[in-house]
């Protein structure tokens, strides 16, 4: 069963995909399906970076046709889309903080190319690039990899961001992230290079949440120059190294890239491309649960002062 169902209570689409139940969870190292010679790369001796369509996709190009008649509030759509896995390196034991900077820079190029190619598909409305690192956020394989979802709709939280950024622009005449960059102080800054600013935002929802903002107003990855690509790679590597060093472990996180939807050019002047790192831990050992208040109301209770989290992350020697 694979389909989209509409929720009229929240005005959002739900993906129903029973295939994802069959996904492998934490197999042993010898079984790693995305190592050279593994299930996905049987005849491949080595590779550099690979993106491939997920064996257990939530959305697919050839989504099943629906035999369904809309009735009252019940609406369905085909689960059209693409779900890709992006393997960062053939080295099973590597990760973003351990990878050479050049490899992370290549990964940014791959993200750009995937974005360009997938956004040309007629049914694609939004491209979401992300990485779940660690079992705490449900990563099923330890081999360094991320994912890309090419959605047939603009997801709810993206719509919320667009609405909020539009509202700010209409009130102030400025893109809100440009405004943040202009007014941000050192106390929340974690790392900065020529093109990017990494900070624990004033409005962090998770303890140790970090955002990476390009200093130049761009709305998508595609607009980054080669120098900016390298600077983004440098920011990502730097931040993930700080996480691991501060907490003396492979610190789990959800890394998410937020681009403006490609089919809606009218928002590019106020939508600022950015990354979010949402770590699920409140310290070395304890988890920050997405419990009733967070899940039910979208209201987050952050137990760590953002300025304090930023100070700790900034002072890590890497």
């Amino acid at each position: 069963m694979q389909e989209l169902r509409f929720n009229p209570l929240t005005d959002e689409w739900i993906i129903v995909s029973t295939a994802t139940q069959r996904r492998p969870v934490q197999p042993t190292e010898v079984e790693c399906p995305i190592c050279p010679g593994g299930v996905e790369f049987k005849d491949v001796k080595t590779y550099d970076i690979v993106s491939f369509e997920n064996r257990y996709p939530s959305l697919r190009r050839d989504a099943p046709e629906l035999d369904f008649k809309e009735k009252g509030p019940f609406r369905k759509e085909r689960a059209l889309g693409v779900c890709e896995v992006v393997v960062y390196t053939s080295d099973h034991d590597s990760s973003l903080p351990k990878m050479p900077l050049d490899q992370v820079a290549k990964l940014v190029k791959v993200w750009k190319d995937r974005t360009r190619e997938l956004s040309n598909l007629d049914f694609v409305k939004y491209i979401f690039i992300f990485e779940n690192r660690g079992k705490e956020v449900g990563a099923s394989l330890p081999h360094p990899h991320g994912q890309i979802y090419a959605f047939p709709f603009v997801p709810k939280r993206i719509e919320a961001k667009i609405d909020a950024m539009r509202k700010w622009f209409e009130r102030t005449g400025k893109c809100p992230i440009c405004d943040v960059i202009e007014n941000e102080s050192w106390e929340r800054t974690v790392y900065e290079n020529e093109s990017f600013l990494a900070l624990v935002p004033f409005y962090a929802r998770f303890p140790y949440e970090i955002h990476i903002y390009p200093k130049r107003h761009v709305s998508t990855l595609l607009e980054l120059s080669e120098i900016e690509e390298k600077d983004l790679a440098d920011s990502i590597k730097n931040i993930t190294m700080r996480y691991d060093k501060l907490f003396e472990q492979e610190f789990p996180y959800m890394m998410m890239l937020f681009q403006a939807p490609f089919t809606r050019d009218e928002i590019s002047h106020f939508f600022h491309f950015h990354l979010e790192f949402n770590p699920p831990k409140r310290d070395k050992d304890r988890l920050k649960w997405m419990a009733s208040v967070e899940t039910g109301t979208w209201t987050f209770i952050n137990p760590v002062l953002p300025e304090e989290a930023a100070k700790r992350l900034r002072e890590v020697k890497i």
Partner: protein
Amino acid sequence: MKVFGKGFTGGWIVQDLGNGKVEWNIDKVHMGWIVRGFVEGKPGRIEVFRMKTPHRVLAGGWQSWSPFRVFKTDGYEFSYQRSWMYKDTPRPELGNILSDYFFATDNLVVGFLSSKTAHGYFTLEGDEIVGWLDYFDAHFPNRIQIEPFVILEGKDTSVLLEIYASMVARESGARFSRRSPIGWCSWYHYFLDLKWEDILKNLELSKNFPIEVFQIDDAYELDIGDWLETKEGFPPVEEMANAISSHGLVAGIWTAPFSISETSRLFKEHPDWVVKENGNPKVAYRNWGRSIYALDLSNDEALEWLFETFKKLRDYGYRYFKIDFLFSGAIPGERKKNMTPVQAFRAGMRTIRNAVEDSFVLGCGSPLLPSIGYVDGMRIGEDTAPYWSKGKDDGRPSARYALRNTITRYFMHNKWWLNDPDCLLLRGKKTKLTSDQRELYAYTVGILDNMVLMSDDLELVDEDGKRILEETLRLRGGKPRVEGLMEPDEKYVVKSDGTLSGNTRIEVDLSKGKYEMTVEEYSYLKKEKVFKDGRIFNFYEEE
């Protein structure tokens, strides 16, 4: 500013038009205001908007070939040629048309979001610009929605035009293939002298180019209107398609489906299928040394013929349709049914789309807003030519002004359809274009991410032409924006971030036919696509 003769107020307002009634409301939208409403009865021409005329406006006519440029409003005069009177507007007799559908000035865009029933346009009345919705002679017993219109302000004109284009796309139901094919077209080398041998020769030579679509243009047909019959020297239409397909190319064909020549078999057999004036066939325009009438698209029998014609062409193997001189389908006149010319035009477009299904449809010589949702690509300028410019900037062929429109209408691309900038002419012989002009045209088209179509005797495209083509294709894929739209000196800056060659910028001076381009030094990853158990794997590595 005034809306329906009143200042901006809240709530619904009802106005008696004498022969009808209009109800309207104004709301705030991002960057401006939107007016929506309803109309009923026999509204004719309604004034919907009025403002003090700015010093200069970016404006243009209703269809593909209409020049779209900056006009100084002081001393502005509207002129037209008698034999092409509907080329720039369906209302030439008014004599003071400034722009159709929308206009822009510094930090302001005013425009209609659709043209589903009425034709929207702007006239210059003394020191004011007046916006109109024209329902012609149609009568509406039940109320219908007016074409919404917006007033956008507070940002740079280019940004506002991009916002306007996105709003139009949503309101008008834009739907098109995002796959932009690389094509060849016979017109700009062979024109009407095309021979079947030329087709066969270029089909063979096309192997040396990344051509996907091979389109036969005007010249093969028996007459304008007799699309399924070929003239002497050409094989039957079906065989032409087979010859193209057998070379592994998508077969494309040119037609002018809403035009009927006075000499055609179609007109002789169905003289009542044309738009009339005082009961007689009305001349839509004169071309090919003949009078051309307009197909009455309110006539069910004519629509059935149209459907069958295109269905047959599709059955013969054509999957790419360049449909030309479309404005004739929307000229005012007497039609069989009570409907506006816009409604009739859209019925014709819908019929073609239904007949060709998912084939690629390229509009040309077409009213702009009413075509949205029916075409995949659209010509947005006058014809190009194998020379830079000759004569006035009034829609006649020239590379200079074709490229000008490609630049000034850039914001329509990828929102309403794929912009067709007209063909690149890359041959080094039998052309008056200099190497600089060929490059300028091609590179600007690439940076604007437009369709890439060639029109040369491929035998005459040398290594330099191939290099220009290759570089042009590598300039696509970015997010273009034009700066300097409101400047009257034909100097523009086109920037595009994220092209296949990295971030690029081209400064063009059309009056001199010169350019300066900056391309980022960008390194690529090599990509290999592998198909395995129904899935796509992309292997990336450094080049």
